[in-house]
């Protein structure tokens, strides 16, 4: 994996995430090493950056400094503020407070992404921003195409210049090829080439290796080192802490919108970085005594595999609340989609109450009394332009026979569920699009409660939900479990998992990497299984 073997001290592959180490490292002062890059003059200084969205502060006075030619790792849990910080840097968001100093001069606050690119800051997003129908050269020189005397695009010159830039990267891609023909790694190269053609001095890369194979990753790392030697600074965002240690000079850790630490990578282990990411005091308010007694197994999943998932086994019992933790892209949602019949697995079986069920379609899952509150309620959960009554009853109408909706019984059950879930609305005929996030989520839940689901999968049940409604949703989940429903909660929010789940399964890259009971649950442990520290 390592691009530059021997640069870092070997670590003992010990698999015990000791909380003690966490505390110790957290107070250790930053020590400058002899590394030239670490001591290089800063090319970028972000000072006291704060940013709020809709009244919620997501960045609290963050300082972030990158030296010339330095490779700076940037880590943090989902929602720690990494992306927001980088989007401010790229000119996509404007900070509420603080200043950005690039090459010694302070930026205007409302600088545009194009200005930033022209100044030499380029960002390569996780989802690559290339136009598939255009050629490599056209993508590199988009909106800056060399012109002929007549004002038309000079394709010959453009292709030559593109070839020259690609040459600098040591990449042999024909600049006349259409981008959709390229492999992911090549597309990334095109993005890097585009950045370089802007005379980039600071390159931000967001999870660049997640779609790459091991060999491609090594090529990318060689390239990054090469860029660094040419004096180009790189901000490297990744959840793969090993890679950070391998490739970066320093690492900055953010947590809940605050700067936690900046360390030389020679000073820390991947496990310590994980501990810094989680950091906070582990509160002991857990889900110990709420749910009913978990007895018999309701859902039994065996050997589920597909392109992403690798031989996943797990079971859920009646009345249990099982958490699924892991980082974005670990395959949790994909696994749930397999169970719910929205995705065809290559192998594996699902049993409900001991009976094998073939789920080819959502309706099969629904008939087996499964329910699935999806992570994106606007995209897959609700029909926003219809009212609460419709949205809450789609599934129960499907389950019941009959041609007509049965207006009276529908109205009764809708009114009851609105009361039970305390959905705040003007009437059951109110359009779902006019409800707040929390109330929308309750409507998404109502759909499955009215249909009598016995296994309920909740994917990110409180995403975009305010704090009050969040507690109400937790309460509903506990009540459901007490009634004997088996509940699966997929969540990236560790405190959420901790407050409602009795057991948590951690996934990483399509595999189950660990199972923790409520008693042994710490966020550091979860983060340890969720990254590839092992």
């Amino acid at each position, binding site marked *: 994996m390592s691009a530059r073997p021997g640069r870092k001290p070997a670590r003992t592959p010990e698999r015990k995430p000791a909380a003690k180490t966490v505390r110790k490292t957290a107070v250790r002062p930053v020590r400058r090493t002899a590394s030239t890059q670490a001591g290089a003059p800063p090319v970028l200084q972000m000072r006291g950056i704060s940013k709020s969205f809709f009244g919620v502060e997501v960045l609290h006075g963050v300082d972030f400094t990158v030296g010339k030619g330095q490779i700076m790792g940037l880590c943090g849990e989902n929602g720690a503020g990494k992306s927001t910080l980088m989007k401010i840097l790229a000119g996509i968001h404007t900070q509420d407070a603080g200043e950005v100093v690039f090459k010694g001069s302070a930026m205007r606050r409302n600088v545009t992404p194009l200005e930033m690119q022209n100044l030499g800051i380029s960002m390569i997003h996780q989802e690559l921003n290339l136009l598939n129908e255009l050629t490599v050269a056209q993508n590199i020189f988009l909106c800056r195409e060399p012109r002929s005397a007549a004002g038309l695009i000079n394709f010959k010159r453009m292709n030559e210049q593109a070839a020259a830039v690609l040459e600098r990267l040591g990449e042999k891609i024909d600049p006349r090829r259409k981008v959709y023909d390229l492999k992911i790694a090549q597309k990334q190269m095109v993005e890097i080439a585009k950045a370089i053609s802007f005379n980039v001095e600071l390159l931000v890369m967001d999870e660049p290796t997640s779609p790459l194979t091991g060999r491609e990753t090594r090529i990318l790392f060689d390239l990054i080192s090469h860029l660094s030697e040419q004096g180009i600074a790189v901000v490297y965002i990744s959840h793969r802490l090993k890679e950070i240690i391998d490739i970066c000079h320093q690492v900055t850790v953010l947590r809940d919108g605050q700067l936690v630490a900046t360390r030389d990578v020679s000073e820390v282990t991947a496990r310590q970085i994980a501990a810094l990411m989680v950091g906070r005091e582990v509160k002991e308010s857990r889900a110990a005594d709420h749910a009913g007694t978990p007895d018999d197994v309701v859902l039994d999943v065996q050997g589920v595999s597909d392109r992403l998932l690798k031989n996943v086994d797990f079971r859920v019992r009646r009345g249990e609340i099982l958490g699924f933790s892991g980082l974005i892209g670990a395959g949790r949602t994909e696994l749930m989609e397999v169970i*719910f019949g*929205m995705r065809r697995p290559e192998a594996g079986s699902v049993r409900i109450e001991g009976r094998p069920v073939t789920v080819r*379609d*959502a*309706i099969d*899952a*629904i008939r087996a009394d499964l329910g*699935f509150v*999806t992570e994106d309620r606007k*995209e*897959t*959960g*609700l*029909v*926003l*332009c*219809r009212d609460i009554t*419709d949205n809450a*009853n*789609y*599934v129960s*109408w*499907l389950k019941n026979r*009959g*041609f*007509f*909706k049965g*207006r009276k019984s529908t109205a009764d059950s809708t009114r009851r569920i609105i009361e039970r879930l305390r959905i705040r609305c003007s009437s059951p005929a109110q359009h779902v699009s*006019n409800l707040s996030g929390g109330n929308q989520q309750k409507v998404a839940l109502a*759909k499955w409660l009215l249909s009598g689901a016995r296994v309920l999968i909740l994917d990110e049940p409180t995403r975009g939900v305010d704090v009050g409604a969040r507690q109400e949703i937790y309460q509903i989940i506990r009540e459901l479990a007490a009634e004997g429903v088996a509940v699966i909660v997929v969540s990236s929010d560790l405190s959420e998992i901790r407050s409602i789940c009795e057991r948590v399964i951690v996934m990483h890259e399509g595999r189950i990497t660990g199972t923790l009971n409520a008693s042994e649950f710490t966020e550091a442990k979860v983060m340890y299984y969720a990254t590839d520290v092992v």
Partner: protein
Amino acid sequence: MRAMEQRSESPVIDLARRVWRDYSILVVFVVIIIICAVAAPRFILLDNLLNILRNTSTVGAIALGMTLVIIAGGIDLSSGPVLAVSGAVLILLQRMVNADGSPAVPLAVAILACLAVATSFGFVNGFIVTKAKLPPFIVTLAVGIIARSLVMYFMRGATVMGNNIPQFTGIGNGSVLSFQLGSATFPGIPIPFIVAIAMAVVFHILLTRTKFGTYVFAVGGNENAARYSGIKVDRIRIATYMLVGLCTGIAATIEMSRMAAVAATTSGAQYEFEAITAVIVGGTSLSGGKGRIVGSIVGFIILGIVNNMMIMLNISPYLSGAVKGAVILFAVLMQRRER
């Protein structure tokens, strides 16, 4: 939302406000009628009004089915040609006579065959749209072109006369509920309009009271959410195309009965666009998920009024497109506030 927060002075003003907010198409409708009555006093005569209703019912029947398809997020550009094909089937069966001059095929059988052909075209449209996952615009355009070409080929581009018997022509030209009151005569309500209104009632109930109707809205509003709720999205889609096919078959029956003839090139020409126009004027969203049958009824009657006024005011028929285009823009602009 803003309107609801305003204090209400009186129930009448409240009602007016609600009508204005939710049924502005009715307001537009009344305004158009007043303008027409002022511009051409003959417009408001009973015979003329009944005539408008009769003339507009064919497109109206198609517009009802089209409303469902559009609410479900689709479109059907093949209705006109399908009307010609199914109409041709009807006329060809209906004109076959025995040696003694009596019909060889019972009229009911001929009509059922016409409806079956039209519905099958709807099924083909729906099947290709859902299974091949092609845009409905392209599929129905292609099917329409094929249908028109086939009917022209088999009829050699000619017009074929049907068997002009009153049982058949009475469907499109007859009226019911005529009565005499002193010296005044009420000529009765045109049968085509009765048929269209009966269909409208059925479709309205289908959309607002049945599970199927709810799923139609769900599929058009958010296909993914519908799928995750277990709704068989493809089946709903195919059903809407079959229903617009059935509507087209009914429209073909009315049209053939009125003309007692089918013309390979002109029968049903442009009807799909007239029907889509009526649906849009009626406030149904082309992006799916929103719409009302009531709106489409008003929509096709407005189109009928526009056609009628062109004749009343002796305006060149070449200008009818300009007027209709303006009506579409006006009606849609009026309703944009509702969203």
